[in-house]
């Protein structure tokens, strides 16, 4: 979770702060909520320590679950710890993240180095993360599979003018091991289906490796009045033939003690080469999947956010220098181009395409000290 430890900007250690967040995702029959607490504190002149505790409480009756399984509830708990060490213009970071749920354990180790250059106009960051995951399956105590992940990253933050700052990030990720979802199935045409649906289900079978490359860029501009606009774009491609374009535009407008943000995000992707909504027969291909996330889709998000600073440096409370409360909503809509809504109970081939609408709520308090 390098992002949780702050955007790389070496030469200065990140600010001491605490964030207490409540998040709620509600959509498509799935409700996920929980807290996230982040505490960062400088120790001495050169070290900054950060910890994050995060919980997902999941209650799922998603379309994948109700068409082939039973609704369920579960909890995921995640701990992160990171240390930043500043020496001259160089910041080194090490971090560890542990995530546990009843059927999935993940451990991630990360390391990065940032270097300020050229009169502090340029920050170059190189990063590496190693993930060691264990996938299990509820109801089958003998099922245990490994998944190894490696992520190499290079990032550049550049001050371009007095009003403009930009970043460029490239990441290459490799996954090796069990990449299936052990609960999901694929659908295949079966004229002899005893239930009269005309199709049956069988287990998914994914390749054991996946290599992805992502190139992201962002630029934020200070407008002639006190407000900012940001544009961002990401190109993604992987060895499963998923190719995507993601773009977003953000406007930030402060007013008195408030800061308002509006954002629109667009994402469009092709499907994995082994994805099919309906395979022609059982075991039709070497690899097969019907995860809707791997299908061709277009998603749109509209975000509104308001932050109120109730404590500033002129009226600090004891050791607290600044305090704010922020509330936001992200309205997510996904159009799936090749994933049928089987809950419509339409004849095979005539099922409507599935659409997902979800709202993501966040409220958090932030304190600087």
């Amino acid at each position, binding site marked *: 979770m390098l992002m949780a430890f702050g955007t790389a900007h070496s030469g200065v250690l990140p600010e001491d702060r605490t964030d207490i967040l409540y998040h709620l995702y509600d959509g498509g029959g799935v409700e996920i909520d929980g807290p996230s607490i982040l505490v960062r504190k400088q120790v001495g002149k050169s070290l900054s320590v950060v910890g*994050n505790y995060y919980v997902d409480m999941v209650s799922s009756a998603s379309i994948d679950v109700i068409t082939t399984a039973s609704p369920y509830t579960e909890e995921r708990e995640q701990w992160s710890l990171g240390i930043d060490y500043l020496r001259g213009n160089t910041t080194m970071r090490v971090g560890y993240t542990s995530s546990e749920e009843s059927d999935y354990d993940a451990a991630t180790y990360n390391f990065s*180095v940032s270097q300020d250059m050229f009169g502090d106009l340029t920050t170059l960051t190189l990063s*590496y993360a190693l993930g060691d995951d264990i996938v299990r399956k509820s109801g089958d105590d003998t099922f245990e599979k490994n998944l190894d992940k490696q992520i190499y990253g290079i990032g550049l933050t550049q001050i371009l003018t007095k009003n403009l700052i930009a970043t460029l990030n490239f990441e290459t990720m490799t996954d090796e091991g069990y990449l299936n979802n052990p609960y999901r199935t694929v659908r295949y045409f079966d004229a002899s289906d005893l239930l009269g649906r005309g199709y049956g289900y069988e287990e998914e079978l994914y390749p054991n490796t996946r290599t*992805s490359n*992502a190139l992201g860029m*962002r630029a934020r501009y200070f407008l002639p009045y006190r407000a900012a606009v940001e544009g961002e774009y990401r190109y*993604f491609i992987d060895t499963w033939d998923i190719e995507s374009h993601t773009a977003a535009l953000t406007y930030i407008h402060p007013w008195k003690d408030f*800061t308002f943000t509006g954002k629109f995000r667009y994402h469009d992707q092709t499907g994995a080469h082994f994805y099919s909504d309906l395979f022609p027969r059982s075991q039709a291909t070497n690899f097969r999947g019907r995860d809707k996330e791997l299908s061709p889709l277009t*998603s749109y998000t509209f975000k509104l956010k308001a932050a109120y600073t109730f404590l500033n440096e002129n009226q600090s409370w004891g050791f607290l220098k600044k305090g704010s409360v922020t509330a936001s909503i992200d309205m997510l809509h996904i159009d799936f181009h090749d994933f049928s809504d089987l809950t419509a109970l339409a004849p095979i081939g005539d099922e409507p395409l599935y659409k997902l609408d979800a709202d993501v709520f966040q409220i*958090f308090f932030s304190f600087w000290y």
Partner: protein
Amino acid sequence: MEKIFLAIGRIVLPLLVIGGLSGCSNFEPWVKPYERDKLADPIMALDGDPVSTSYLQHVYESREGARGGEGAAGGGCGCN
């Protein structure tokens, strides 16, 4: 662990070279430190809300097939 040490080596060595080179030059920044007041405004912070950014990144990785390009992420699935 071998993988981690190899990776650290690949990261640290190039940075030492680049850092050494940048330290030797008498580079004059085209945006002087005293001209960076607008860039220092909190509304220009590229990641002003790290805990929120990290959470939303996880939401998108669970709902879409793409990932990365914004920083490395870790953690479990939570995506069924």
